[in-house]
């Protein structure tokens, strides 16, 4: 199929089915709910403005675009520290010291994700959000039989990058 698809036919259903999941996935990268919603909306906007040539796996297209947007924005974002400070802690905090350490650790993990190739970061993010290997393969348009191997490589790359930056711990 060479012509652009008519995306308007799919948008409402895609919003209903994918917006919340995409937003939560993006949150893992940017750590701010408002920012995550903006970027998820921007992924939909890109789908509307520059749709793929086929309507096959539009959800996958959205997820790939959303993750890339999130990673790119985090790289560029000069106000990152400000927004990370806004991010609520996911678990109960027992002390200011613990809160600080968790904040630092989240920041490190995000820095490492941003430093990886975007496909590897996407693999790790999708798995952490609970997607199965088959779902990850579908979203990222990968051969299902190779996803496990690619994930292992992504994990190793994450580990190496982390150790290079912050040392063993």
């Amino acid at each position, binding site marked *: 199929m060479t012509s652009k698809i008519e995306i308007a036919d799919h*948008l*409402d259903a895609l*919003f*209903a089915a994918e*917006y*919340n999941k995409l*937003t*939560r996935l993006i*949150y*893992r*990268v940017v*750590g701010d*709910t*408002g*920012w*995550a*919603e*903006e970027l*998820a*909306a*921007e992924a*939909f*906007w890109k789908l*509307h403005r520059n749709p793929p040539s086929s309507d096959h796996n539009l959800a996958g297209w959205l997820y790939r675009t959303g993750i890339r947007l999130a990673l790119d*924005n985090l790289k560029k974002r000069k106000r990152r520290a400000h927004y990370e400070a806004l991010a*609520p802690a*996911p678990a109960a905090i027992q002390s200011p010291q613990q809160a600080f350490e*968790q904040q630092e*650790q*989240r920041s490190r*993990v*995000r820095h490492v*994700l941003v430093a990886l190739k975007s496909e590897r970061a996407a693999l*790790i*993010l999708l*798995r*952490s959000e609970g997607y199965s290997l088959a779902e990850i393969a579908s979203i990222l348009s990968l051969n299902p039989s190779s996803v496990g191997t690619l*994930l*292992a490589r992504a*994990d*190793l790359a*994450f*580990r190496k990058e*982390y*150790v290079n930056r912050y040392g*063993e711990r």
Partner: protein
Amino acid sequence: MENANPEDISRWVASQTRLLEAPAEWRPDWEIALTRFHVRQMGQTPPAMWRRWLAVPAGVALFVGIVLLFPAGRVTAQQFWQFLTVRQVAFIKVKDWPEGVPSPGINLIGRPIPPIPARDLDEARWRVNYNPRLPRFGVLSGSPRLSTTFSVSAGTVVHVADLQLALSKADVTGQTVPAQWEGAQLTLHTSGIVIAEWSERALDDLILKSPPSGDETVLVQSLPLTLSVPSGFDFTAYSALVLRVLGVRPAEAQQMAERAGTAPAWLVPLALGCHEAEPGCNNLWAHATMEEIRLNSGLGTLVQESGDDGAVKRVTLLWSVPDRVYLLSGTLSRELMIATANAVQ
């Protein structure tokens, strides 16, 4: 872990990324997002009137609704209101105050103070002595600019002969204005007011580098307005008579007056822009439609202002809860304004 096996590394990476989980209580709202998307598609442009409205001391906005009940000379001629209940029931055409009859005038008591910027909600709370409420995070983009004003009061004096003459000229028969109303002083008071403004243009420019949408939204809130009237004065009956002069049919006038008696602010937008002695102020609401809508917290009044081309330029929503009166106005769509009002907490 230099020589760790892949499974150990995978577990370790999973433990790290688990730190990034979104808050469990966070529920992104896809319906709001979709509405915003459609608004963006429509490519709204910022109405010039809106900026002018912002120049009006926002503190005044909350109480000028009552001006409808005391129609000053500047109240617009030939406004058409679309008066809807939950389902559309009628159109109400509001006429001029009868020519040659002095109309009740509104007098500000004291001098309105322009809004004073507040650094954050704590500072705003400290100034007004109540907890300001905002839409839950994420409904509107970014953080609002906050400001506060002091309490504002305004009043009018009832002149029985003028009102009786106005009724007569408006061909309203069978209505008598009680003589004991003569000289009654009616005064409306607000509490300290909190104003929150969101500018999506700034956020778009900052984050997404996309063309500005021009959307701007303001939420004004006060503790419930208080109305001071002389003992025994029937404010609802007075309101109904004024509405009759303006051409509202008896049953609707009574219904509107009863609502106005408990929440006068619901009439605010009908007078906005035409009460202030602001240079250039003219008939902002010449193309306004009004409807009664149901919010999560109860009934609200929604006014849509259209331009000459019929396109909606601004939406204003008024509603009250037992401990607050709210005015929400902006260039977002009707649906998004309602969603925003429902998200105020």
